[in-house]
């Protein structure tokens, strides 16, 4: 029997705003499969986003959804989770939203190890505003504001998350659709701050400026440049040159923030 995605889609809210060839819909389907696998309760699930193409995703999902301001998803979500630690809080957004204007909130959510899952869809570009370079646009690539090639070095989101203290970090791609839900399931099950970066394409504002001839070519590139972390163990440094690892990249058991704050409450009440 085909998987019933409609169960999690808000009636009347489709079609979505994403362009033909955009992989965000693939990620959304992966997210829905993950929610269904975990049997999350809609009333107990908060899906929080910032601003941008990826941040429009919560509007389509039938649960408690919060479409905040640009870059602020992690900070709003921190308030929701602190107020109601029993809720499942999942964040979704793009690379520009999460690592540029929202970079400070992102690293501090990692540092606190607050028990939420942040799905960052990285399409290397500000898509909604028409293709300006983001902190993830590769050096030398073209965007509407880097007409002579991008002089900036890009972020490695996974390394940033690990460095900042996230205790579960994974990476997938829109090409590897069947892996997305598995990574998200593991991330949500992890107690602590988990980050899932999903590499994606943006044929409209990134692909056409960087000589990708088709969506298929962009998707194939996601396959070509990535190596599963397990396979990478058997590869030489030379073979791994220019490759991006996928799968669960980092996992660590550490106290999570709301559990630690519960202890603060206990200490304060004991001292009263």
């Amino acid at each position, binding site marked *: 029997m085909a998987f019933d995605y409609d169960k999690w889609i*808000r009636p009347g*809210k489709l079609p979505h705003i994403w362009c033909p060839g955009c992989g965000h819909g693939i990620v959304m389907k992966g997210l829905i499969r993950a929610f269904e696998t975990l049997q999350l309760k*809609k*009333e*107990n699930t*908060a899906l*929080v986003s910032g*601003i941008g193409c990826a941040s429009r995703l*919560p*509007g389509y999902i*039938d*649960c*408690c*959804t*919060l*479409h*905040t*301001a640009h870059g*602020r998803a992690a*900070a*709003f*979500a*921190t*308030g*929701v*989770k*602190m*107020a*109601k630690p*029993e*809720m499942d809080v999942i964040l979704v957004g793009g690379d520009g939203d999460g690592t540029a204007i929202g970079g*400070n*909130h992102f*690293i*501090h959510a990692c540092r606190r190890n607050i028990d939420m899952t942040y799905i960052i869809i990285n399409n290397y570009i500000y898509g909604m505003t028409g293709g300006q370079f983001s902190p993830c646009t590769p050096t030398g690539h073209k965007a509407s504001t880097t007409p002579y090639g991008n002089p900036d070095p890009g972020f490695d989101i996974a390394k940033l998350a690990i460095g900042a203290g996230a205790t579960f970090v994974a990476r997938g791609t829109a090409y590897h659709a069947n892996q997305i839900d598995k990574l998200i399931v593991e991330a949500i099950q992890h107690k602590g701050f988990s980050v899932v970066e999903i590499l994606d394409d943006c044929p409209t504002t990134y692909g056409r400026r960087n000589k990708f001839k088709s969506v298929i070519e962009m998707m194939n590139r996601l396959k070509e440049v990535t190596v599963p972390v397990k396979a990478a163990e058997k590869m030489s440094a030379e073979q791994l040159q220019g490759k991006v690892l996928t799968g669960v990249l980092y996992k660590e058991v550490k106290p999570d923030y709301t559990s630690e*704050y519960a202890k*603060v*409450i206990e*200490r*304060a*009440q004991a001292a*009263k």
Partner: protein
Amino acid sequence: MSKKVAFLQGNEAAAQGALYAGCNFFGGYPITPSTEVAEVMSIELPKVGGKFIQMEDEIGAMAAILGAALAGSKVLTSTSGPGLSLKQELIGYGCIAEIPCVVYNVMRGGPSTGMPTGPSQSDVMSAKWGTHGDHPAICLTPASVQETYEEVIRAFNLSEKYRTPVFVMPDEIVAHMRERVVFPEPGDIEIFERITPTVAPDKYKPYDTSFGDVPPLAAFGSGYKFHVTGLNKAQDGFPTTKAELVQAEEERQVRKVDANVDDIVQFEEYLLDDADIVVVAYGSTSRSARFAVNIAREQGIKAGLFRIKTFWPFPDKQIKALAAKVRGFVIPEMNLGMCSLELERNAQGKAPVLGIFRVDGEPINPDQILEKIKEVK
């Protein structure tokens, strides 16, 4: 039974007032001269099972309280000038998404870093015009430590009642001076609790105007699922660009406050019955003004004081009525003329407005005000 009393600083009283009002979530970022509020809340909130979080920046603190408010908490943040500038982005979010919250802003010298430990009254316009777009504004300007305590409680009540952010803006003098505070007993001051939906979850719309201009607000995690956005939205909470829906929603948000000014606007009239010169003042400056009015009376000058407690919405009606019968207004304020613009707008040329404006970090003393009173022709 004797009332509980304490000798408190304005900021400490603000925190105590918030706790009386039922505040159970504080999100903040350290900033002079408001930090004591955060410090007291970090001690007191966990004792009552509430949550305190120090965020990574001012915007994050504002975001956290809005998130917590949507999850059903009564929320407070405290800040000062530079922090207020940063928070403005999400104060606008609170206005359009109609999320109750209290923003306690201690006014210090500005712009920018300005004079962090010096008093000012130069943020009052920021309360109304600071965030972009049309939106309602409620701002309270207490003049004593006791009043700071009580106005913070009133701010919580107003924010819950009208489902909108409310500012409390003491100047640094009020925030840091110490006075006797008499605490009310539980029940002495009415606490307004948020109106939550009575309809079944599948019928709920977060901006349903069939209940009036202030729609009931459900909490995340309470059985209701709904969408919240900073985009212009329809009654179901989802974004819309339909002209008639956007216009109606924007007008309703402003009307929530505009149509209820008599419920919101509070002021004090001192020796106004026969006054022909009216000193209009707010915050600590009103204390010097009262002193000056008393001296003027001793000297046979018919001066009075109109003390603004609610700066926004501005007491338009009261000032207009006074303008029709007095010789002039005197307005002392620790800025280069902000309230005076509102007085001129309302006086409509019927009475002159004489300002005393100081931005040097020193309080305005009664002598200066008395001198200005005598200048009124």
